[in-house]
């Protein structure tokens, strides 16, 4: 499945390890939140990069103590209509200060990617859109009313910016 980040299609070096499966001894691995929380010190001490995948009901605050030792957070959209991931992303970026890769996985539709980008995602794993389409989706608007996690100045403020 294509992985798009920073305007390019990139090689995916991460492997998601399902709940209950054995952890491989090398390579970058992403784990369910529950798995990490079981024994964070041992897992984060492993000699490999560790990422986490959040399910929609997961509370991102549980990651607070580990954020500086995590290299990837995946937010899963099992159904496109389940928008909890947008709030998880905003919390991670704006409240908890996470700066690493934030990847949308699951049912990621082309026309949701702009909202995802604004909510703080920077990588999209999607079977529903190719690179040119994703780039187009990100470029469809040039002004936004409200501040979000993408650092854009809101229209409310731009109207009063000194030229």
């Amino acid at each position, binding site marked *: 499945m294509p992985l798009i980040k920073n305007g390019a299609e990139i090689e995916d070096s991460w492997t998601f390890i399902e709940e209950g499966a054995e952890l491989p001894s090398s390579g970058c691995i992403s784990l369910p939140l529950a798995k990490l929380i079981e024994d964070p010190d041992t897992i984060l001490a492993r000699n490999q990069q560790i990422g986490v995948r959040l399910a*929609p009901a997961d509370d991102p605050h549980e990651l607070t103590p580990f954020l500086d030792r995590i290299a990837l957070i995946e937010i899963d959209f099992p159904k*496109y*209509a*389940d*928008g*909890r991931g*947008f*709030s998880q992303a*905003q919390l991670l970026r*704006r*409240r908890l200060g996470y700066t690493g890769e934030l990847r949308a996985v699951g049912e990621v*539709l082309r*026309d*949701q990617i*702009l*909202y*995802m980008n*604004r*909510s703080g995602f920077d990588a999209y794993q999607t079977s*529903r859109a190719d690179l040119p389409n994703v780039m187009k989706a990100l470029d*469809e*608007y*040039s*002004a*936004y*009313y*409200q*501040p*979000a996690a993408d650092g854009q100045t*809101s*229209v*409310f*403020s*731009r*109207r*009063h910016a000194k030229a």
Partner: protein
Amino acid sequence: MYRYDEFDAKIVKDRVDQFRGQVERRLSGEILEDEFKPLRLQNGVYLQLHAYMLRVAIPYGQLNAARMRKLSKIARDYDRGYGHMTTRQNIQYNWVALKDIPDVLEELAEVEMHAIQTSGNCIRNVTSDHFAGATKDEIMDPRPWCEIIRQWSTFHPEFAFLPRKFKIAVTAAEHDRAAIRVHDIGLHMRQRDGVVGFEVHVGGGQGRTPIIAAMVNEFVPESEILDYLEAIMRVYNRFGRRDNKYKARIKILVTETGPEEFTRLVEAEYAAQQASEKIALLQAEIDRIHAYFAPPAFEDKAETSDAFERAKAADPAFANWAKINLHPHKQPGYTSITISLKPIAGLAGDATDSQMAVMAHLAETYAFDDIRVTHAQNVVLPHVALDDLYTVYRELDAAGLATANESLITDMIVCPGLDYCNLANARSIPVGQEIQKVFSDPAYEQDIGKLHINISGCINACGHHHVGHIGILGVDRKGEEYYQISLGGRADEKAAVGQIIGKALRHEEVPGAVKTIVDTYRDLRTSADEKFIDAVERVGVEPFQEAIYASE
């Protein structure tokens, strides 16, 4: 009225281009209907029984002549010559072809209109008091804050895929004409020690589970309201139920969590917001938006008008209309008029393209270019000089727009029902028309006084039957249409859900039952001044039940 600046115009233009692309991808087969659905739904396009339906946003119900003319043109060019005013102060077109919708949106953009977020599980059109800025009983004009909330909620990236649709209403008058207590969020503007703020009600709604909203905060100052709304929305987005679409509205979250615990969650989320997360709306921006809503240039006039009094004396039909369809204005010598879209045996809320053109002309010529759509599916000209009233009335009358029944029993809220809607179980329109015929004698109708009948063709309650003084709900019994009647509902500041009075009635029994209810009320009221809803509150539903079901 608010006017777009370069940013507003660009955002709406970008939307038209984006939607044109989406429709092209759908028509070419590049995306399938199930992928197109969430896209069209965020833009007011529904697939109905016969065709696609397009719902156009009328923010807080306000139009001007140019916009009304455009709506008229769209009705003529793309529909079958009419539009349907909705209970959310929007307009719907029932016969628009999908391929034409991008062109319709482009035409709308020319007059600063759009169809953004008129459907889908997102924040919908913000609604308000249709007499805002004109009525005597408001403490301020709520429209500037409606506009600010409109902008804040437009394409909000975090709240576009909520558990379910989300409706916000704002009022600033003691008498609540915006039905804020049956909205997901209802805001009542207040003033405290010179500070403007909002009383915040959350979790009201109709549908399968009618609930009156809980007050979660008595006073949120205006400088904090958007941040407070963000906190409510985030709690809902994270914790609202997504396992069952009928339990997904915020009212269920508030009820199941308990209003106290829900309030605690909101307050905790609000308290956790860091400075960098705040919207930090500048006072200059608040002032900029308020400036668009400055009162029109009224002339100094006396409270009464000789021309008006003379016309009433000369034309009894006008006098009768003026008795019923006017609302007191804050400016001496002016009034607000309701243009009823509920003629006897008409289609509730429908206006033809030529009627829309007449309303546009009158607004421009006599009413400071201001028009409102009401949540009762009528139209209002909020600022008309008493001196001009007779002229306005005659033009309305010539266009079939002078029905004198505002808030009377024939002024019903009626959903499209089985005639148009693919959710409905029963027809609504014919039932409403048959009831209207029973009460078509103006003397009889006026003797009854204020009485709201609301009719829904299914449990989704688009016809607001739960909060009708008399509510009528269509249900399907083995392929036959039956109607359940409730009494005592109301949507105002004393909001209450009506009580079902007994077993559902067959279609043909409904008009007679309504007449029995009304005549029972006339017999038991303490005087002609006791309104129907007050009498029901005093005596309960039993006398009415007895009158209808006693013979069985």
